[in-house]
């Protein structure tokens, strides 16, 4: 990508900002230069997006330092610094109004906020926390979840605050430690599995969301959806759930009802985010429309968040070593996910999950065949 185009883009953009602060948004100069800048964005996209990042007083375009340092680049850097913004991501589909709003935000005292095709924010360095910290944060979250689950019954409402706390613990863990494989917890006993697995699925689902740059309330709701995906199992007879001998077809059918039980339970509660109901119902549905529960008419296609939960669910279940069953290693689990991408799983999400896993663990082979 030619750095001249980037420089020209920044130059037009800063001229539009100056026009706005000198005159107003109605001035033809503002329109002209914001239009000129917008005309260049198509040439800057790489993989449907491009970013400008300020780091150590230099401007970095798509992770490559920008060689040119003209008046406009310096001015843009100063404005970013003044606005306390370190990174701007422009995405394909950027509309004139969004772009103008960004320019006017940069040129005025207003706060610059993200819009659907333009994100602003800061950059952070993620350090690996000591295992003890990670385990303790993760353990806190799982304990909170466990104590909420102890209270679950058909007649009691869910302690949503307790669940929020659990998800916040997981989010803090993810912030401290980006290698998700160091976060997800081992299962120590049969009874421990339900809670640990729920916590792990929550973390693995949020990990996928975070790797896509998602945050805030959405990330929190996704975490909660992961955490509560199997809540329906609380309503399956423990004699069936914990049975160690061969299951009858009826017993297996009963286990397969847990998505319905879960969705039924959650949908009756007033304060739970709707995503939890969706994921509880759909996490065993498949990308190709098969799976369970079988639907009558309405739900034929899995919600994208349920698709993320499904990946996390299978990944954690297969890689979890249990006292009576050996685990699949990460590489084999990844192969299996990849092989089933397109039928069981959303291929784009599998690709994102495995490549993010490879990226944070420094083992790109996770995403190779």
């Amino acid at each position, binding site marked *: 990508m030619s750095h001249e185009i980037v420089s020209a883009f920044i130059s037009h953009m800063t001229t539009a900002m100056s026009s706005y602060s000198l005159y107003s948004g109605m001035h033809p100069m503002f329109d002209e230069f914001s239009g000129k800048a917008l005309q260049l964005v198509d040439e800057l996209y790489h993989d*449907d*997006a491009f970013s400008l*990042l300020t780091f150590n007083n230099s401007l*970095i375009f798509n*992770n490559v330092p920008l060689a040119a340092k003209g008046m406009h680049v310096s001015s843009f850097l100063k404005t970013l610094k003044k606005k306390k913004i370190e990174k701007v991501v422009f*995405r394909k589909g950027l509309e004139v109004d969004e772009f103008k709003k960004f320019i006017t935000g940069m040129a005025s005292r207003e706060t610059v906020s*993200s819009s659907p*095709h333009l*994100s*602003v*924010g*800061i950059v*952070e*360095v*993620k*350090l*690996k926390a*000591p*295992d*003890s910290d990670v385990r303790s944060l993760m353990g806190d979250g799982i304990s909170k979840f466990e104590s909420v689950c102890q209270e679950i019954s058909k007649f009691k409402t869910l302690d949503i605050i307790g669940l929020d706390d659990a998800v916040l613990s997981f989010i803090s863990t993810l912030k401290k*430690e*980006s290698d998700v494989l*160091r976060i997800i917890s081992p299962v120590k006993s049969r009874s421990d599995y339900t809670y640990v697995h729920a916590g792990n699925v929550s973390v693995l689902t949020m990990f996928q969301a975070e*790797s*896509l*740059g*998602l945050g805030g309330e*959405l990330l929190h709701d996704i975490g909660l959806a992961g955490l509560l995906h*199997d809540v329906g199992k609380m309503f399956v007879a423990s004699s069936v759930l914990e049975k160690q001998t061969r*299951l*009858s*077809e009826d017993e*297996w059918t009963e*286990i*397969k009802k847990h998505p319905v039980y879960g*969705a039924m339970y959650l*949908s*009756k509660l007033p304060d739970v985010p*709707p*995503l939890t109901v969706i994921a509880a119902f759909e996490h065993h549905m498949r990308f190709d429309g098969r799976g369970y529960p079988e639907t*009558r*008419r*309405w*739900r034929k296609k899995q919600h*994208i*968040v349920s698709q993320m939960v499904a990946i996390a669910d*299978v990944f954690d*279940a*297969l890689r979890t070593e249990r006292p*009576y*069953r*050996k685990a699949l290693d990460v590489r*084999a689990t990844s192969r299996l996910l*990849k*092989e089933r991408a*397109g039928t069981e799983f959303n291929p784009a*999400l599998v690709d994102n999950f495995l490549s993010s896993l490879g990226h944070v*663990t*420094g083992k790109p082979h996770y995403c190779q*065949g």
Partner: protein
Amino acid sequence: MVEKVTMKEKEEAKKIPLDAKLLSDAIIELNISRRSVGLYPGDHPIVKESLRKAFSCFESLFELSHNITLGIAKNTLVVGDFLLDARNPVFKEFAESLHLKGIAAVAFYSGLSMEDLQGFHELLVAKDSFTGPEIIRLAESKGIKSIKLIPLDISKFHFAKDSLRKEGSDCALWESYVSGLIDGTLADSDAEGVILSVRQEDIASFLNNRMAGDIDETSYDRVITSYLKKRENGGIRAESFSKFLSLIDNLSPELKQQFIKRAFGRPAVEAGEAESLLKEITSCDMERLEAILHENSSLIPESLSNLLDKLRHAKTDESFFDRLFANRGAIDDIEIDENMIRLFQDDQFNNYVNKSYQDELQLMMQPPKISKASLAEEIEEHYREELIGKTISEIVLELLEGDFIAREDYQCLLERILAMTEQFLEAGRFYEISEIYSTISSHSHAGKFNDDASGVLADFFHSENFLSGLIEALKLWGRSEREGALRLAKMNKCHLMGRLLDALSEETDSSIRKFLLYVLSSFGDEIFPEVIKRLNDPRWYVVRNMMYLIREAGGIKYVTYVRRFARDKDEKICFEALKTLVHFKTSDSLSYIKFHLNGDDPELRSRVISLVGTYRCEDAVPYLLQLLEKKDIFGSGSGDKVSIIRALGKIGDPRAVSVLTKIYHSSAILFKAELDQLRVEIFKNTENYPRDSVNHLLEIGLRSRNYEIRAISERLLGERETAYVS
């Protein structure tokens, strides 16, 4: 002042580790060699001498530590937790030279060779503008093994959307990055440290060359420890252990024995720790370990051999599944085929699937290239309230249809779906409401809890509150959500009809009126009794709308009720009635046409002429021709004549052609312009006539002095010629 600085420096010197002096000297020498290249040739003795001095400093340093990592924070060098004096111009210059090359850290390893140091120096002074990953590749191509360059990788910075930088926290960012890198705590870097990222074959070959002869046993321990570094609260990682086994595989027999003896015989490997480690390792590593221990059984403590034996049996007996049922198995609640799992295990994959097939498989499994940005956008889109609402309502409907739903659950879900229906109504989400309504309706007829469903229909969907809300929503959103609105209105038509007709009579906005008429006309036969009743309404527009509905809803049976308005004094009512009769082609419609064509009301006559054209009433052609041929001495009827020509043009009856030709040839002394306009109009409206009937007229048109007539004639004759040929 000078004294103060010296004191401060002394204090700092106390904090800096013992090797700082040696390291400073090494850096100073490396910088001298780097700078000297600008003044002297590359092989000048000064360059060689400073490199040799640097090498000697590193050799001494390696006696204290087996690796030294220098972090580069733009113009500051960082070693461990210490920043080397940023005011020292040599450090600053050296740091900047590395920073400009996009290098974030340099690690020097014990076993550093003079050749590698020379190679590193060459990279630093190279005039090519290689930076970051390119320079790392260049180092690899030069075969530099004992110096590792770590590039500045911006992609490792995490983007926190919509967050703002807190005052004064920006410096911490860079420092965190560098210290994370050096401590090995930076996310993305290898957890066990750099040694694990180097190929085991390379390390083995290095050890085979360097560790021959009498070596202090602690040297083995250093290597072993770097692999089998314990986690802070746990044991050794299975993966590190696997790499350690690979290293042992590649060692010379003598070294192999030494390593095995030190690694497995030392008290650090406690039984509990060994058990948890051996439980974690893969079957493949277990086999490798067994083979190694079998070959070197004399070196292994008996307790470890026994433990290994016990665990081997345990592993063989294990099943993949948590549950078995019929002929299948499941892990947790995931139904899965055991063969599938076996296939994807590392030790089986290559046996089942050959390389070329794996490549093919890899190609087939390539997901469609969807960027992270589009995926994020898709998730955000699906998080929108409207889509979430739709999904939840669909799920609740699925649950309501469930076979094993209990009555109390059914009632609770009904409450939830009704609350959602209210929200949908406010937003004009007619399609979703219609799905809910139709499901509950079907339950009221033949459901498990039909009483509850019927109750909801009566108390909610047929309530005044809901119906008036629905009408308001239809008025507001109906035109933009046409399909869903129509579907819902039709489902609820019995309860909605009267209210909609009232709303229609009171509506002042013509586009809303038009939409309400469109909805009402889709109701079919059931609407007519109410409509006929309202034909007696004193308001002209209500009567007109009712006749519109009879016509558009196909109420031919009710045409008798319309007939009485066909000669109404009110022109609007009269015309609507005539239009309805013409629409249904009633036998008496022609007589009403004739009556109004000869009537005194010019406005009504003009509308009737258009109506005849629109409905292509061939039977009315003679009456139109009569009007056309009528003498117009004062020229006041030219407007009517234009309308008649247009109406005739729509009908395309050949009986009109001779009259049209006659008009074309006629002349006028007065109203010449009007006649010319009429002539042009004739030609503009000839397209629907049979080809043969107007050919002659068009040929005449070819000779016209009027350009427009000539052009039309040429075009139509040309088109007809083409059509004839083809």
